[in-house]
């Protein structure tokens, strides 16, 4: 039985944690939240120097060729710091999409740029307020040209390229394909959109005969996206676990410090049991995330189930920890000055980006039914 990260992986985790504690304290998150930057560039540059975007990129493409486990521990630390950097968009989604479906030429062109931090990418799926499906994908791709509107696109303002879900004319799920589009061209316009978490900037991307190319086979977009989301769900589960843990300890520290009726509020069962519940949810999430991580490295046959379970548990843990952290703080926790808001906001961005908990619960049971049949 060896259901744990290795000492090397723990060392890497510690290193990233120290770097972020030092360079990305909450005042940096606040700066991005309050300001106009697309992200905290100095934090991002530091992470690039640490090799973060290169982690899982094969050495042949200029990466470090490390295993998914290394990226899992990094994701947890990025989540803990609620770091305002293009991690989920570029390091997870765009990189994994290229690795999963890119042609050799596409990989040769983009992976080295991603590894070195010279480029960032994103994935653009949603088209406004509806859970994205093949049948409601109105963005079209044909004859090398992309037309349509994607919103919200995480880090879409600053990204060098986007991987876009577009209608290519097939039937049912085969109606859509993934398309790679360079965002630095005339056919692309970008506009920032306001969201509940201004510390992670989102954009609307409008494509007007933008030059683009298929990523993966035509009609395979939806299947590839599902595989991509399973992988991303595990990494983001670690980010959510990190965020949940940060929120839990923030609440706990405050509960030790704050007095009411002559006692630390942390000595009242209402607070103690609330935080114990945070811990319970956190450990369920962590254990499910570990199994997800193992399924990223192993033969991965159980990845679809493991990813769904990890995502559901981690979303629940982060939602709960983030909101009860505010509650534990009382009035001060609801002020703009308080650091509690970062996790409250971020928890929603992470909860909805790959689809919300209801959809994943449905998916999980579908996969369980399929597994029981086989």
């Amino acid at each position, binding site marked *: 039985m060896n259901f744990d990260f290795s000492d090397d992986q723990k060392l890497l985790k510690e290193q990233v944690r120290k770097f972020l504690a030092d360079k990305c304290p909450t005042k940096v998150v606040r700066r991005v939240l309050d300001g106009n930057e697309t992200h905290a560039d100095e934090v991002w540059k530091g992470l690039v120097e640490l090799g973060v975007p290169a982690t899982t990129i094969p050495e042949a493409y200029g990466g470090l060729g490390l295993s998914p486990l290394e990226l899992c521990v990094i994701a947890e630390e990025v989540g803990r710091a609620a770091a305002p950097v293009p991690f989920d968009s570029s390091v997870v989604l765009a990189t994994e999409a290229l690795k999963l479906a890119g042609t050799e030429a596409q990989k040769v062109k983009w992976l080295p740029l991603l590894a070195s931090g010279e480029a960032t990418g994103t994935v653009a799926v*949603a088209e406004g307020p509806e*859970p*994205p499906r093949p049948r409601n994908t109105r963005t079209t791709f044909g004859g090398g040209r992309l037309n349509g509107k994607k919103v919200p696109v995480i880090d879409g303002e600053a990204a060098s390229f986007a991987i876009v879900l577009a209608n290519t004319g097939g039937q049912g799920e085969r109606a859509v394909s993934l398309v790679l589009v360079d965002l630095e061209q005339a056919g692309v316009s970008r506009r920032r959109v306001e969201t509940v978490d201004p510390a992670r900037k989102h954009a609307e991307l409008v494509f007007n005969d933008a030059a683009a190319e298929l990523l993966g086979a035509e009609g395979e977009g939806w299947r590839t996206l599902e595989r991509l989301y399973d992988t991303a769900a595990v990494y983001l589960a670690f980010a959510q676990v990190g965020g949940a843990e940060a929120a839990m300890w923030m609440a706990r520290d405050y509960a030790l410090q704050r007095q009411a009726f002559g006692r630390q509020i942390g000595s009242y069962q209402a607070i103690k049991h609330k935080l114990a519940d945070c811990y319970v949810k956190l450990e369920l999430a962590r254990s499910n995330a570990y199994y997800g991580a193992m399924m990223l490295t192993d033969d991965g046959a159980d990845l679809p189930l493991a990813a769904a379970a990890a995502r559901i548990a981690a979303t629940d843990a982060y939602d709960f920890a983030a909101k009860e952290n505010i509650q534990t703080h009382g009035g001060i926790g609801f002020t703009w000055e308080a650091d509690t808001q970062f996790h409250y906001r971020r928890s929603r961005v992470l909860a909805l980006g790959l689809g919300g908990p209801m959809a994943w619960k449905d998916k999980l049971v579908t996969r369980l039914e399929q597994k029981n049949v086989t």
Partner: protein
Amino acid sequence: MDFNDTPEEAAFRKEVRAWLEANATRKSDDKQSFRARNDDPNLLEKAKAWQAKKAAAGYARITWPKEYGGRGGTPILQVIYQQEESSYLVPLGFFDIGLGMCIPTMMAYATPEQLTRYVKPALYGEEVWCQLFSEPAAGSDVAGIRTRAERDGNDWVINGQKVWTSGAHYSDYGIIITRTDPSVPKHQGLTMFFLSMKTPGVEVRPIKQMSGGANFNEVFFTNVRIPDSQRLGKVGEGWKAALTTLMNERLAVGLPSGGLDVDELMELARDTELEDGPAIRNQQVRGKLAEWYVQQQGLRFTRYRTLTALSKGQTPGPESSIIKIVAASKMQDMGALAMELMGPAGIMKEEVPNAAGFQAQWIAAAGFRIAGGTDEILRNIVAERVLGLPQDVRVDKDVPFNKLK
């Protein structure tokens, strides 16, 4: 069982309706007017004008005795007036604390001359009052306040800081609770005063909330000198006076209104396609909708039970103590679900009708679960006052305030 007025109530309602019809504009769309109201830069001026009109007509404070400009009416008449007024586009909300809490405390403790001076201007909206109770280290535990008032001849000199003071930035007067004797246990060394917010040494700073709004303030007191004649109640009996104030707060019957509720969520669920069809057909969504409808109706009918007691001239039971516990979490959970229904775009503040509203409520609810009594304090209150369970151990009860850790 019915929801009908008694003949007396019906007559009063008719009178009020006629007066409102003659003096105010009926709302066409609740939400639109809600927005219109809040975006108006001259809102305070308009509110003052409306308050003056109401006061002149005798509707400003129906339960007050006639000598103070009220009409000696029952609480149910006050409720009926509010029900009727809520259908009209009138600016409200600036005078509730003053008329609901501060002036009743004045009535209990101030001199006849002071009442003559202050009650009418407050009733007519000419002077706005605020309540200076909470402090950074005394939120749920109000009696733990540290703001000092020290006697100096015939004056008192106040130093300290208050927080969460609604409306301090537009208030003319305030009632304040201070510590005048730190050498006795915490509830015993308190004294209450009233003062002008223009007194030298008073500084008001707005607090920006997580929601972006700034309805609350910090108020700093630096050597603020007021005469002993502004004391309310005896020296050292401030806690008793504060309880008078807080008791009046509890008489208010109401829910935050104008928000998005089950109807709007159903509308969203009808209009949103999930994987397997409209969200309204999804049994998980239906389950949630049903639960929230049951809560919404439960709160509504709980309120009707309270109104019935008022209508019969009885003291309402404890049933209304559940309202905020239920409403705040419901608002938070509904906001979260609404966002989830919209998919990844649920975080966006634009594009979707009501999206920004649900998001705003999801954020506001995090504060609503705290303001005016946290979920935890309210459960304590239900457990102790309704169910008769004992207080938690109070280690600070008999210890001199300045000996507390």
